[in-house]
């Protein structure tokens, strides 16, 4: 059974359609990269999966459970999220950013939570920054704490919403490295990103979304080298142009 299954998902904000009839399946331990022009509904799609936004039609299944049949807080415990703007809790240290969810949602004791947080900070290479506040970290470090925060909840799936778009170019590498490690370890990841290098090396499938519709979907080599649709080709051409500048 696939871990995540979207069936004919529709979403509109008022009269403005954002997603139209989107369907796809994601296998466990796969990495799905969603690309598409801005305004194509990529971020909305992610937010529908953990119900930060509610869909208007269709169904979404997580490991066989329709997501509206699961308590929303329980769903979000099972689906981690990493944000474009990091959204680290400003008033908490790197360690406490991670322990808040462990203690309040998973009911871990302080010692357990602290140990686990330090463990995950170590995994993203930030063991020495456990007591730093977000304002004292660089963008790349913040995002790595953000990934550790999502990871520590032992999610079945992690959503990445343009995790490197707000970073200075020289900081992107450290975040992608962590994401590549995760992919290798078998974490199931649904990523909105325009990092083509990451998509080529780590993605199992790439999906091209345009104007709220799923235009084309396939393994990275096929989609990048030999796209079926003109729109896909045009978009990838523009993206490559930007990347090679």
């Amino acid at each position, binding site marked *: 059974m696939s871990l995540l299954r979207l069936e004919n998902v529709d979403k509109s904000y008022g009269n403005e359609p954002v997603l139209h009839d989107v369907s796809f399946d994601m296998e466990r331990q796969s990495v799905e990269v969603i690309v598409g022009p801005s305004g194509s509904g990529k971020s909305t799609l992610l937010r529908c999966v953990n119900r*930060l936004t509610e869909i208007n039609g269709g169904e979404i299944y997580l490991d066989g459970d329709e997501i509206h049949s699961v308590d929303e807080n329980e769903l*979000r*415990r099972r689906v981690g*999220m990493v944000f474009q*703007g990091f*959204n*680290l*809790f400003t008033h908490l240290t790197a360690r406490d950013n991670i322990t808040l*969810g462990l203690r309040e949602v998973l009911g871990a004791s302080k010692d357990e939570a602290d140990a686990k947080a330090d463990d995950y900070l170590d995994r993203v290479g930030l063991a020495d920054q456990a007591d730093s506040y977000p*304002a004292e970290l660089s963008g790349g470090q913040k995002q790595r704490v953000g990934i550790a925060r999502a990871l520590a909840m032992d999610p079945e799936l992690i959503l990445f919403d343009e995790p490197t778009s707000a970073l200075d170019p020289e900081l992107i590498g450290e975040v992608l490295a962590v994401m590549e490690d995760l992919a290798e370890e078998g974490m199931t990841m649904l990523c909105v990103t325009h990092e083509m290098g990451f998509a080529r090396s780590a993605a199992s499938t790439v999906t091209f979304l345009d104007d709220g519709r799923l235009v084309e979907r396939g393994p990275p080599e096929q989609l990048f080298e030999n796209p079926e649709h003109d729109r896909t080709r045009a978009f990838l051409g523009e993206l490559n142009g930007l990347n090679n500048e």
Partner: protein
Amino acid sequence: MSETAIGRDGAVGSIRGRKRLVVGVVGGVFWLWLVARWIYHNSLLDSLFTAVGLPDLLQSDQGVRQREPWVPVEPFAAAAESLQTAASGPGGVIFEWLAWPFELIALAAEAEPALASGAFLTVYLTVISMFLGLFIAVPAAITRIYGGPISSRVSLAYTELIRGTPLLAQLFFFYFGLPLAGFIDSFSVMESTGAPRAAAIVAIVAFTINSSAYQAEYIRSALQSVEAGQLTAARAVGLSKSEAIRHVVLPQGLRYAIPGWTNEFIYLLKYSSLAAFITVPELFRRARDIGSDTFQYTDIYLIVALFYLGLVLTTALLMNKLEVRLSIPGIGQSSTRNS
């Protein structure tokens, strides 16, 4: 500006150098004297001292008017008198001017016990009302932002009703309008325990309600200045809305609220003088009574203004210290230093 000038970031806390020492000594003497007066006439401490068999040093049974000044009045009064006598001779006006400071000091010395007692009541009214008001203000602010359509409107109506009517009218409503004072007086235990009179309790009720509305507005705007992404991230981790508010929005928002909250504290400290009009013998009422006894209205109001100034500057200083202590990199005063 020189380095001894008051800095941009706030209040008396940032005075430097020798001026800091002078301000510190004046403030220290002021507060040492006030606290000594309060202890000396505190009935609870007095009965405690007697109970454990200590000599009867404290004097709580004296009425405020019977209390002896700790600064001698006589020399200053005599000096003023002789200068006034000289004023009837040539160059009289100059002697009259010279007599004035001595008159002022003599009056201050004479009024000192009563003003200390009034200052105590002023601080007491303000601190208790602010504290109790906070327990109304925080839920009111949260309901206003995160509540449903009905509860947020109830909260809005409450703040607008309270902010939209004069404090004096509210005081009169509770004291003369509602039979609240008589109700409180009907508990005869109040008198025997030396608890404040009914009027003071009515004043606390009115001030609590009034300040809660203003505090709620300061807190609301502070909570709204917390980035929306913070709540989203908390929800995405799996925290419920109320957990997210409690663990993420409030700790940040309440820190942002401190400067506004200080403003309300200072405001209430001064406007607690309105309690004088419902017979509460707080600082302003004491001054007014002394004025009507001596007819030295200008002098006593000048003295009492200095009292209020001392109380306000102290509040500003303490709140500034609190803000610095609670600041976190990225939130509060330390962030301005880092950036």
